[in-house]
């Protein structure tokens, strides 16, 4: 029982961290209609940007997160405008493949600049909090709180700001949005900035928990993708629900299978979802 409860807590924690880049992935999909696998590299870049701010500039977690968000957002926009954008009208599959290539390039730029070694954030070491037999790390708790705040901010942005509404309008019907004077090209740039930025923040939150290296983002890419598919591609609340469900499923699977099979959970989740409900938990249309 304790085992299951602990797995549930751990699942919600990892799920919340996955949810942040999953929102970024889904937002880009909703507006630009292609799956951007380069978010893995964006997550890594975010993690390194925050690490640099943290260890070199001595910044605390929150300002380092802000720097990671800005740096990754800019990298995302530059990458989009210089490479992926040209391929957009060739179809979603072509851009998706190009984003995998872009991911490799960016990942190796990081490797070239920072080396292959694992790096850790400069954080105070703290004892786990104990609730009876349940254990929670204070760092995990802080990351969870940050993830929740970031998600809430994103919801408020999409729901209440003019730009958020314009983004949703373009996602729903770009032609109609244009008749109303919304420029989809501008919306696309902001969406990529937000999506890449959120991926970067996600990379930091994931890195805070353990350590970072050039494959930090790549390791969670499948989980992020699975979470987005599970929740319904293009649906922001769906990405959150999918990430939490996947996080819990992964942790639960650890109880019965060796840790090597953890990633298999993501694949199985995608497979089951596409077989029985292709539009996802909260999705409105099949992708």
């Amino acid at each position, binding site marked *: 029982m304790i085992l299951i409860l602990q797995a549930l807590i751990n699942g919600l924690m990892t799920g919340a961290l996955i949810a942040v880049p999953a929102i970024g992935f889904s937002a880009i999909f909703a507006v630009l209609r292609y799956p951007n696998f380069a978010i893995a590299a964006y997550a890594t870049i975010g993690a390194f940007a925050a690490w640099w701010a943290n260890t070199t500039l001595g910044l605390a977690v929150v300002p380092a997160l802000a720097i990671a968000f800005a740096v990754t957002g800019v990298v995302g926009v530059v990458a989009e405008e210089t490479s992926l954008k040209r391929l957009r009208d060739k179809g979603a599959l072509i851009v998706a493949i190009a984003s995998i290539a872009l991911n490799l390039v960016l990942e190796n730029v990081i490797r070239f600049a920072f080396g292959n070694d694992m790096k850790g954030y400069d954080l105070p070491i703290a004892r786990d909090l104990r609730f009876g037999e349940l254990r929670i790390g204070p760092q995990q708790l802080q990351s969870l709180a940050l993830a929740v705040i970031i998600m809430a901010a994103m919801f408020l942005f999409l729901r209440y700001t003019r730009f958020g509404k314009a983004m949703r309008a373009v996602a*729903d*019907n770009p032609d*109609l949005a*244009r*008749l*109303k*004077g919304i420029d989809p090209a501008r919306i696309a740039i902001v969406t990529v900035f937000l999506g890449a930025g959120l991926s970067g923040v996600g990379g930091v939150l994931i890195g805070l928990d353990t350590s970072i290296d050039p494959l930090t983002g790549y390791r969670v890419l499948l989980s992020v993708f699975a979470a987005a598919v599970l929740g319904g591609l293009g649906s922001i609340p769906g990405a959150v629900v999918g990430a939490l469900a996947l996080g819990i499923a992964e942790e639960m699977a650890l109880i019965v299978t060796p840790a090597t099979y953890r990633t298999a959970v993501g694949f199985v989740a995608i497979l089951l979802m596409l077989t029985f409900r292709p539009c996802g938990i909260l999705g409105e249309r099949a992708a």
Partner: protein
Amino acid sequence: MTAALIIAELKLDFYGVHVLRGVDFTVPAGSFTGLIGPNGAGKSTLFNAVSGLYRPKGGSVRLGAVETTGLPPEKLVAAGLVRSFQLARGFPKLSVFQHLMLYGASQPGESLLPALWRSHTARRREAELAERAHGIARRLRLDHVLDNPVTALSGGQKKLVEIGRALMADPKILLLDEPMAGVNPTLADEIAGHLTALNRDGLTICLIEHDMALIKRLCAPVIVMAEGKVLTQGSFDEVAADARVQEAYLGRRH
């Protein structure tokens, strides 16, 4: 007769394919002009180029006396050129009423200050628009579904919302892309009735339609497009009798 819309030598390419190869025609003011042609003739593309969604490669579009070539879509809507879409998807999360309100001309809520202020004039304008939306809904018999989300409507009702939305923008000329396609015959007849009534009230309409019986009943003149150009034009009987039109539809005899 004055012209509502003059299209001259309009050209447009897609990846090197000449989709519009110099389209020339005029929609007379107050007319109910029909635009027909086999699939792939470039009819919808022409609408997209005229309504500002695509940028033409050459040629010109004039709305009455005003040159409008290359203007962005929202400027064209403001100038009175309003179109409907073949796929009447709309914004799935909005209700019918919200849809209509969204396309009201000069919405006060669109600029930040009046939206925050909710000044007297802004409120009055909004009340006017709401009044207008209700009027249009009554006219199109959408009043009983005003608060339903557009996704809950039947295919025919969605087409009516498309027309209603266009009317909210106070159009001088309405470009309609197959507003009756895929709609059951009774509702298609009703839509045709609405369009005839609107035209009789002075609205210029240019209609893309595949149902020849409808074109024959509603439209004069009829313009036939094929392979990115205007093939011929005239009354329905004239173009129907034209051997080239039959050839374009049925394929060339070998």
